[in-house]
């Protein structure tokens, strides 16, 4: 009996500990934040909590599609979500996003004008941009001959087994579509089928379909060519000098990740305070230091280290940007993209 009593008391203690952690913070507001993995300098979370006495429950997800499924099922409530352009567009169209009260976000003044009224939020009333970048190719200059400038490098049989593609449908499908000269937002199924065939042809050459692992693999010389976002590329180049990045001449994708507040948010103004905190120059610089992605912050851009500033991956030229296209929400047609991608993987 005594043992039973001991066991029961241990359980009770732990129950209190487990659920009680939130009890002890009853007087503190807690905001639930959802973001991509490894996309924030975590010290900033601690700093915010201490400065504003608001607790941050921080959760991560791998791809926007994952996030959408989770959020759509209504099972979890978030106060702030950071995700990519086309996904935000989709959620805005579904009336899922609350307009922001910019009085609570004075740091918004530092956001570059170019990033304020983008196609996914044309009136600029729902979002505050976070990071941006391009989609391109990272390659090892010691393995790849010459100076490649085209999507063809990803399909080059000479480098079979050295190529990495992304397990992210829009990005990989986008590469194929652009190689064929089509738009990344096409709703023409025959074009998608062509892209699918191209990707299936490519399969024997591909070492792996990965997302975040690419950076580490390129740094470690596990592969020589990778489809990759500019931020990842810049970070990889920082650790391995043999690497170089380019945006293919046939055109590519420009993406913007931004912050928004879903309608299920319980603490809107606190979330807005967090947005404001992240948009300060100091926070942005700290974030850039960890994430290495291109910034939307006018003042931060000026204070960024020169090796970043001079890196075309971090700071692309206008000419490069001219040939990029942003992903748009395709509504229900996305299902076709999903189906095509699953079929590519299943082969």
């Amino acid at each position, binding site marked *: 009996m005594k043992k039973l009593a001991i066991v029961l008391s241990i359980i009770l203690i732990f129950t209190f500990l487990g659920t009680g952690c939130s009890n002890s913070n009853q007087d503190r507001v807690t905001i639930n934040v959802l973001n991509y993995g490894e996309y924030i300098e975590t010290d900033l979370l601690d700093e915010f909590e201490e400065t504003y006495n608001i607790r941050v429950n921080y959760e991560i997800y791998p*791809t926007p*599609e994952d996030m959408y499924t989770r959020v*759509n099922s209504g099972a979890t409530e978030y106060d702030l979500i950071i995700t990519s352009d086309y996904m935000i567009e989709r959620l805005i169209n579904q009336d899922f996003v609350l307009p922001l009260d910019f009085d609570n976000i004075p740091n918004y003044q530092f956001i570059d004008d170019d990033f304020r009224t983008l196609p996914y939020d044309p009136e600029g009333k729902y979002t505050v941009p976070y990071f941006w970048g391009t989609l391109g190719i990272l390659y090892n200059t010691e393995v790849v001959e010459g100076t490649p400038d085209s999507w063809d490098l990803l399909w080059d049989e000479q480098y079979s*087994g050295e190529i990495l593609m992304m397990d992210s449908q829009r990005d990989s499908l986008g590469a194929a579509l652009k190689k064929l000269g089509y738009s990344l937002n096409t709703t023409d199924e025959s074009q998608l089928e062509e892209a699918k065939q191209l990707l299936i042809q490519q*399969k024997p050459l*591909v070492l792996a379909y990965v997302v975040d692992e690419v950076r580490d693999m390129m740094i470690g*010389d596990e592969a020589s060519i990778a489809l990759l976002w500019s931020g990842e590329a810049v970070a990889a180049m920082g650790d391995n000098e043999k690497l170089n990045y380019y945006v293919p001449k046939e055109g590519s994708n420009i993406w913007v990740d931004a912050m928004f507040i879903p309608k299920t948010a319980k603490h809107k103004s606190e979330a807005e305070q967090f947005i404001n905190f992240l948009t300060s120059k100091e926070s942005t610089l700290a974030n850039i230091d960890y994430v290495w992605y291109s910034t939307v912050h006018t003042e931060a851009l000026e204070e960024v280290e020169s090796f970043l500033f001079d890196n075309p991956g971090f700071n692309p030229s206008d000419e490069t940007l001219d040939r990029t296209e942003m992903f748009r929400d395709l509504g229900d047609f996305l*299902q076709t993209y*999903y189906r095509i991608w699953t079929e590519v993987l*299943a082969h």
Partner: protein
Amino acid sequence: MNKRQKFFAYPYGLWMTLFILLPILLVFLYSITSKDTNQIKTLRFTLDNYRKFFDPLYINVIIRSINLALISTFFCLVIGYPVAYIISTTNLKKRNTVLLLFILPMWMNMLLRTYAWMTILGNNGLINSFLNMLGLPSFRLLYNNTAIVIGMVYNFLPFMVLPIYTVLSKMDMKLVEASHDLGADHKTTFLRVIFPLSLPGVISGIIMVFMPAVSSFVIPRLLGGNRSLYIGTLIENLFLVTGDWHFGSSVAIIMMLIILASMSILNRFDVDKEGGAGLW
């Protein structure tokens, strides 16, 4: 035993209905309804989700998964049986230590150990670096089926060894002695006496390895480079990425049926009906 103590089991009966039976019924429900609507009143029943599955593309996914699981199970058996045998013939003092040492890796996080294999098998990983030092060329050991099988064998080997060991250790050694006394050599004794007696353990082991191997999604994803879809990764993809829960549910039900079918086939060999209880 007191008849009143029967009531002890009732609360769990309720729990099982709610948390085991009901979820599976819900999955089944999803698999036979269509995507168009999620309202209960306007459910549309359909077998489309199952029909979709019979496309050669997806049949290939199943065949691939079963193939891989069979190969992994085979290696687990071939490597694991001798281990079980050796441990069971070790003297008692050392035996516990050896067993503990054998089980110890299982206490480390499975994901981490799988992930560590990436460091070992990679192009610039330990094995290839070692080979290179000796002047030998590198082998592509990662992001292919070899890596997946290595990962599966590594993770599931204890599940093969433990049931076989349990049966072998309980085996009546007098039967083996009798066989020797009657003139049989070691090989015959093994084939005719020891192995048949250990069969229940072998069956247990095969089941315990084949099941998780066929449905695994972490190992193919991390070590296989996601180059092909397996049942496990397909289901995860359908549920968490594509969001097609209806089709995903039908794949899940099909996978369940495959596993239940293979179990009933294998159980025909296990006359004792020890089942899982033979494990511990």
